[in-house]
C-alpha cells in the first residue's frame, strides 16, 4: 500500500466509493489526487541562519470531466464525509443520472524509478542543511573582498501522491525535490552589482556534497557579481545572438514550448495552432520534452494525472511534430497522451506542461560559432522569461552577456531583455554546437497561476537576428550595423 493509503487508512473500496460519488451526476470520467507534501527550508543572511521553517500540506482534489467540461473541488480534510462532499461538489458539472462505471482499481507495475534517493532529504538532520549554508557564506566572502552581502537558501520537499481514476488506474509516487541558492552583492565605490547561482533536482543532500557543492555555487555567484561591476551598457537593436549551453535553453521553453501545449492548440489560441507538419525552425533544430531523465528537476515517474511520463519530439529537423498533451486535450484532439498533465498541488486542475525541454546537439564547435559573428551578443546566463501564447512574442532576460566583436568576446555588458517571435526565431538558427548541456536544476514555470518545477537545455547556438533590449542606442548604430 502507498504512503497515503496507509497513513489515512484508505482502501481501494473507499477510493471506488468516492469516485462513484464523483460520477453520481453522470460525468464521463473522475479522478482523485491525494497529496501529502512535507517541506523544510533554511536561509542565511548576514552570515547567520536567520530563518528555518518546516511544514506539511495535505489534501485531495476531485475532478470530474463531462464532455469537454471540468468540475473540480478540493479539501484539505481527508475525513470520509469531507471527501464525499468534495466529490459531490465536483460531480455537479454534469447533470443527469449516474452511469456508475467505476472500474476495479489496480496499480500497474512501475515503468521506471527515476529518483531512487537513498535518504529522503526530510530525514536528514537540520544541522547538515545549515552547514551547507555556512559553507556557501564563507566561500563567497573569501572569493573577493568586494563581496559584501551574501544570502543563501536551502529548500527540500518530499511529495507523496496517489492518483486513482474511474478507469480503474491507481498510481502512487514519492517525489523528492531539493534546491540550494546563493545570491551575493558586490560593491566597488558607489557601484553595486548582484550575482546568483543555484542548483538542485530530485536528489538527496549528498548531491550538494559530491555533484555541486555550496562552494561551487558561492564562487559562481561571486564571479558574476564582480564581472558585472565592469559591465557597460548593453546595445539596443537587432543583431546576431549566440546563446551558450545549458540554462539559455529557456529560449526553447518560452519561444516554442508553451505555444506547443495542447490546451492552447485545441482552443486555437496559440501562435502554433494548425502548424503540425510545417517548418517552424531551421533543419538544424530538433526539440524534445523528456520527463524521464533520472534525478532531473522536471522529471516525474508518473505525471499528476497518473500517466507514465515520456519523451515527446516537438520539433524534428525543423518540422513541428506534436503537442504536449494532458488527458483532456488528448481525448478531445484524439491523439495519444504524452504524460505532460501536471499541477502545482491538490488545489489545482491539471493542464499540459513541460518537463525537461531541450534541443539536441549539432555538430559545430562552439568556438567556431563565436568566430562566425562579426558583431553581436554572446549570452550565457539568464533570469526569467515570458511569452504571449497568442501573438507568439516572447522575452527572456540575459543576466550575463558579452559583446562579440570580430569573432571574439570582447567585454561584458549589463543585463538586457531579448525579444522575438516564437514561430520565427528558430528559423534563424544557423549554427548548433555539439555541446548540449542541461540547466542547473532550479527552473520553475508559471502558467495560469500554477508553478511547477521544470528543466531546460540547449547546446551553443547562433541566432542570426534577434532584438536586444539594451539602452545604448548610439553604440548600436555606430558599431552594430553591417
Amino acid at each position, binding site marked *: 500500500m502507498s504512503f497515503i493509503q496507509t497513513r489515512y487508512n484508505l482502501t481501494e473500496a473507499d477510493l471506488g466509493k468516492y469516485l462513484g460519488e464523483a460520477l453520481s451526476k453522470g460525468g464521463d470520467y473522475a479522478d482523485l489526487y491525494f497529496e501529502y507534501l512535507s*517541506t523544510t527550508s533554511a536561509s542565511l543572511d548576514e552570515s547567520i541562519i536567520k530563518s528555518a521553517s518546516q511544514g506539511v500540506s495535505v489534501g485531495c482534489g476531485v475532478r470530474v470531466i463531462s464532455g469537454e467540461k471540468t468540475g473540480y473541488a478540493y479539501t484539505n480534510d481527508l475525513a470520509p464525509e469531507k471527501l464525499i462532499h468534495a466529490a459531490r461538489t465536483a460531480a455537479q458539472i454534469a447533470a443527469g443520472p449516474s452511469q456508475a462505471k467505476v472500474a476495479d482499481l489496480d496499480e500497474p507495475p512501475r515503468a521506471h524509478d527515476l529518483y531512487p534517493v537513498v535518504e529522503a532529504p526530510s530525514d536528514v538532520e537540520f544541522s547538515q542543511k545549515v552547514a551547507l549554508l555556512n559553507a556557501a557564506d564563507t566561500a563567497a566572502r573569501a572569493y573577493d573582498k568586494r563581496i559584501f552581502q551574501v544570502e543563501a537558501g536551502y529548500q527540500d520537499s518530499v511529495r507523496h501522491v496517489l492518483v486513482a481514476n474511474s478507469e480503474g488506474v491507481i498510481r502512487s509516487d514519492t517525489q523528492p525535490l531539493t534546491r540550494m541558492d546563493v545570491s551575493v552583492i558586490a560593491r566597488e565605490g558607489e557601484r553595486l552589482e548582484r550575482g546568483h547561482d543555484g542548483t538542485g533536482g530530485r536528489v538527496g543532500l549528498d548531491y550538494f556534497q559530491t555533484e555541486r557543492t555550496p562552494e561551487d555555487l558561492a564562487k559562481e555567484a561571486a564571479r558574476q557579481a564582480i564581472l558585472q561591476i565592469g559591465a557597460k551598457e548593453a546595445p539596443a537593436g537587432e543583431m546576431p545572438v549566440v546563446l551558450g549551453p545549458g540554462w539559455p535553453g529557456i529560449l526553447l521553453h518560452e519561444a516554442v514550448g508553451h505555444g506547443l501545449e495542447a490546451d492552447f492548440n485545441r482552443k486555437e489560441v496559440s501562435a502554433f495552432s494548425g502548424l503540425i507538419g510545417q517548418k517552424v525552425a531551421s533543419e538544424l533544430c530538433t526539440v524534445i520534452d523528456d520527463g524521464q531523465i533520472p534525478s532531473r528537476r522536471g522529471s516525474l515517474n508518473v505525471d499528476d494525472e497518473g500517466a507514465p511520463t515520456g519523451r515527446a519530439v516537438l520539433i524534428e529537423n525543423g518540422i513541428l511534430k506534436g503537442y504536449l498533451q494532458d488527458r483532456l486535450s488528448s481525448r478531445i484532439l484524439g491523439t495519444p497522451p504524452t504524460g505532460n498533465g501536471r499541477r502545482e498541488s491538490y488545489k489545482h486542475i491539471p493542464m499540459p506542461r513541460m518537463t525537461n525541454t531541450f534541443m539536441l546537439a549539432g555538430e559545430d564547435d562552439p568556438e567556431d560559432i563565436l568566430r562566425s559573428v562579426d558583431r553581436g551578443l554572446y549570452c550565457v546566463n539568464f533570469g526569467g522569461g515570458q511569452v504571449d501564447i497568442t501573438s507568439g512574442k516572447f522575452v527572456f532576460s540575459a543576466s550575463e552577456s558579452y559583446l562579440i566583436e570580430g569573432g571574439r568576446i570582447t567585454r561584458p555588458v549589463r543585463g538586457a531583455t531579448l525579444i522575438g517571435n516564437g514561430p520565427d526565431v528558430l528559423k534563424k538558427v544557423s549554427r548548433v554546437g555539439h555541446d548540449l548541456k542541461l540547466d542547473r536544476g532550479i527552473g520553475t514555470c508559471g502558467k495560469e497561476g500554477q508553478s511547477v518545477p521544470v528543466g531546460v537545455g540547449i547546446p551553443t547556438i547562433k541566432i542570426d537576428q534577434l532584438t536586444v533590449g539594451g539602452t545604448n542606442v548610439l553604440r548600436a548604430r555606430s558599431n552594430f550595423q553591417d
Partner: protein
Amino acid sequence: MSYLDLASDIVARARKQGADEAECVVREGSQFSVNVRLGEVDQVKDSGSKAIGLRVLQGSRAATTFSSDLSEEGLDALVKSAMETVGFTSEDPFNDLPEADQLGIAVDPADLGLYHDDVLALTAEQKIEMARSAEAAALDADPRIKNSEGGDCSSGWSQWTLANSRGFGGEYRSTHCSLSAVPVAESNGSKERDYWYSVSLNAAGLESPEEVGRRAAERTLRRLNPTKIATTEVPIVFEPGVARSLLGHIFQAASGDSVYRHASFFADKLGEEVAGKNVTVVDDGLRPGGMGSSPFDDEGVVSRRTTIIENGVLRSYLLNSYSARKLGLKTTGNASRGLAGSPGIGPGNFMLQPGEASPEEIIASVDRGLYVTELIGHGVNPVTGDYSRGAVGLWIEKGELTYPVSEVTIGGNLKEIFKDIEVIGSDLDYRSAFIVPTLKIRRMTIAGK
C-alpha cells in the same frame, strides 16, 4: 473552538514547550470560480481550505512551522517541530515580536468595508451567467473576434486570525469577486489576445459583464497587425494597468528588507530626492474598501497611513518590526506573511497621488512616442535599477494614438525613470493594492528593428 481561541491555545502550548515568545496565524478561505468558453461552461472550481502557521522565539533565535493538518496530531507536530527547528537558527539580537505598544487594532474591521454579504449571496448560476455575458459581449463586439479564452467569474471569502504571546489577538474577514474576459482576434494573418477585468470586495462594485466584455474586445482589436518599430529614444506613456508595475518597483526599493541589505537603490537615501518634485507616494492601510486594507498588519501592529515619497523626497521606508530594528527605526505596520516563513514587507494601499491631466491630454502632449498597454518579462534589477522589458502598445504621432507596436523592449534605469515622470494623470486605477494613474516618462530607449 474559535480560530482566535485556537491561535491563543497554540501560542500557550509553544510557551509551555520552551518558547520565550510565540505568534500563531490561522487562515481559512473559500472560493468558487467558473470559466465559460464560447458560450459553454468549461471549468467550475469550488475550493475551501484552512491552515495554521506558528513562529517561535527562543532567546533571540526564531523558527516557523505550518500545517494544513488541523487535527490534534497535526497541531502537536506543528508545535513540536517548531521547537526542534528553532535550535538550528542563529542568535540574532534583532529578532523579537513587535513591542507591546505597537500592537493593536486600528479600527473595527467592520468599518473598513472588507466583508460584503452581496458577494456571498452570488449563486453559482449567477456567476456562470456573468462569465457567459462578459465573454458574449466581447465575441459580439466585432466579426474579427471569433475565438476566446473565455469569460471568468470568481468570488470568495477569507478569514485571517493572529494571536501572540504579548497579548495580541485579532481577526478579520474579507470578501472578493472578479469578472474578466479574454478574447482572441484575428485579421490578415495576425492573431492577438488581450483582456479586461474588474475586481471588487463587493458584488455591487463590479463593472457590468457588458462593460468588461466591451473593453476586452476594444483592447484586443487595437493590437491587430502590429509593427515592430526602429530603435529610438522617445517619451513613453504607461496606461494605469502597466504603470502599476513602476509603482511596484518604488515599493520594492522602499521595502525595509531590501534597504537594510543594501539590495535597493533607495538605501541611505532618506531625506533625499529620489523622484520628480511632482511625485508623492502614500501607503494607507486603512483606506475604506481598499484592496490592501487591514485593521492590523501580519505581526499585529496597527495599520496606518505613511507618506513614503513627498514631492520627490524619500520620507519613509516600509517596515516590519525586524527591518525597523535593523535600521534603528519604528515599524510602519507593513509586516506581511503567509503561513510559512518569517514576516516580510507588504503594502497597505500604496498610492501615487494623482495629477490633473486626463489620459487624453497626456497623449496629446506627445509628438512622437509610445503608449504602453502591456509589459512582459522580468528584466528589472532591484539592486542597480537597470530596466529592460518587452512592451506592447500604440504609437503616438502628433498627439494621437496611431498603429499598434509589438516585439520591442523599453529600457532605462529606474533611478532616472522615477525622476523623469513628467506628467501624472488623474485616472487612478483602484483594482489592486497598488493605485496609480496614467504616467508619462520623459524619455526611454525603445529597442526594435
